């Protein structure tokens, strides 16, 4: 077990701090974007939802999300002056098991990023209400998380379909980004993480009850994840045959 944990620690060490730093930075940028929108709309009709809709917070979040995807894809790739794959392929732990730990690590990184986005949104809401609409605090936030597409997609509350979609995205992104460096070591360039990240950026923020798009995104995420897992399994089989 110690061997397995040491492989997991390799991935954790090379990703989690960077992912956390990226999440913190995204929080700061989103706060600035939100503050700018609030300042721009000062004097107009006040409203948390209005400010959120006018701010570029979802865009900022999408950009940092893309950066995180790139970070997870390229960490562990055989590039930038070293090919750790040569060592990983000489371990007694199979590449499939190594990939399992990489998937876990990538998924946790996305989870950390999601948590940071949610925390940022909640803090921004509370901060705004504390200064602009002190009387409406709790309920306004609750309603905003139902009516603002970005906020609703971050925390779908009782929208089970959206929650399932988010879980599928988490799993799909975790698998595709973790498998990317592994396949790259075998000379394959897979586009799954790029495709999935692009789809997520475009279609993440949806209004409540968009069942069609939720279903489509869920299927895309699961299909991409399955495709990456299949290529991993196939590679392992090829290796055994060789």
């Amino acid at each position, binding site marked *: 077990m110690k*061997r397995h944990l040491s492989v997991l620690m390799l991935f954790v060490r090379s990703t989690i701090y960077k992912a956390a730093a990226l999440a913190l930075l995204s929080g700061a940028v989103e706060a600035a974007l939100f503050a700018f929108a609030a300042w721009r709309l000062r004097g107009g009709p006040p409203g948390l939802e209005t400010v959120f809709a006018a701010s570029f917070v979802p865009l900022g979040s999408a950009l940092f999300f893309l950066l995180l995807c790139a970070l997870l894809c390229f960490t562990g790739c055989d590039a930038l002056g070293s090919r*750790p794959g*040569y*060592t990983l392929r000489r371990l007694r732990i199979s590449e499939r098991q190594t990939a399992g730990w990489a998937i876990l690590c990538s998924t946790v990184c996305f989870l950390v990023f999601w948590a940071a986005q949610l925390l940022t949104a909640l803090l921004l809401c509370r901060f705004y209400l504390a200064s602009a609409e002190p009387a409406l605090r709790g309920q306004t936030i609750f309603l905003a998380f139902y009516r603002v597409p970005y906020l609703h997609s971050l925390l779908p509350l009782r929208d089970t379909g959206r929650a399932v979609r988010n879980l599928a995205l988490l799993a799909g992104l975790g698998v595709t980004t973790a498998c990317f460096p592994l396949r790259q070591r075998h000379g394959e360039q897979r586009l799954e993480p790029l495709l999935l990240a692009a789809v997520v950026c475009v279609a993440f923020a949806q209004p409540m009850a968009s069942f069609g798009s939720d279903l489509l995104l869920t299927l895309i995420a699961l299909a991409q994840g399955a495709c990456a897992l299949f290529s991993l399994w196939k590679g392992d089989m090829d290796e055994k045959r*060789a």
Partner: protein
Amino acid sequence: MLKLESVSKSYGRRQALDRVDLELRPGELVGLFGENGAGKTTLMKCILGYLDHRGSITLDGAPVTRKNIGRLSFATSEHSFFPTLPAEAHREFYRLHFPHFREKRFERLMDFFELPRSRELRRFSTGQQNQFEVILALCQGADYILMDEPFAGNDIFNREDFYKVLLGILEPGETVLLSTHLLEEVENFISRAVLLRSGKIVGDMPMMELEESGRSLMDFVKEAYQYRPDRVSRALSDLAPEEE
């Protein structure tokens, strides 16, 4: 014994290795020579199972698999360490994954080359990275140590030191396959020279035999490569401006 029988590898239409037969016996220090693109790196990667190939490669009669690959170590100028880990973490990692990891040797070599233990490998200079790469290969506890241009980027003194250290620390059962262009430097250090050309072995000679015949390694390489000494002078005379 590490045995290669009729090993072939091609990249598309280009034949990188063409029915290579080679045996590496325990305790040998084998120099692997050849021009760029001769197939030296490909040969090593085939031995390690990094590349699909035809033919058979066996380690004491058994194919190289995950079960016995720990008996092979690899030092490459491309580097195989984890750039975000410090040297100390590598030691821990190797100790866990390679049961015969040579702890004492690691300590001594780290001290000898005065390498920092807590600095991430990516912050090492190229020379230090090369040194650490070779240290890892030597300390893994492998029976067969494959080195592919491990000293590219190191200065001459550094390399000299390394050859001496290597000769001093290797145990009788440890085999080294060293690929390099630095013929003169390794001439006195290796026990056998293998020459590759266009994916084929064109020469395989124990250094003892070479010494007895009064030839240098360079002479042997030139013979095997059918090197024409007048090649340069003829080319220059062809290029010289014509007299009017």
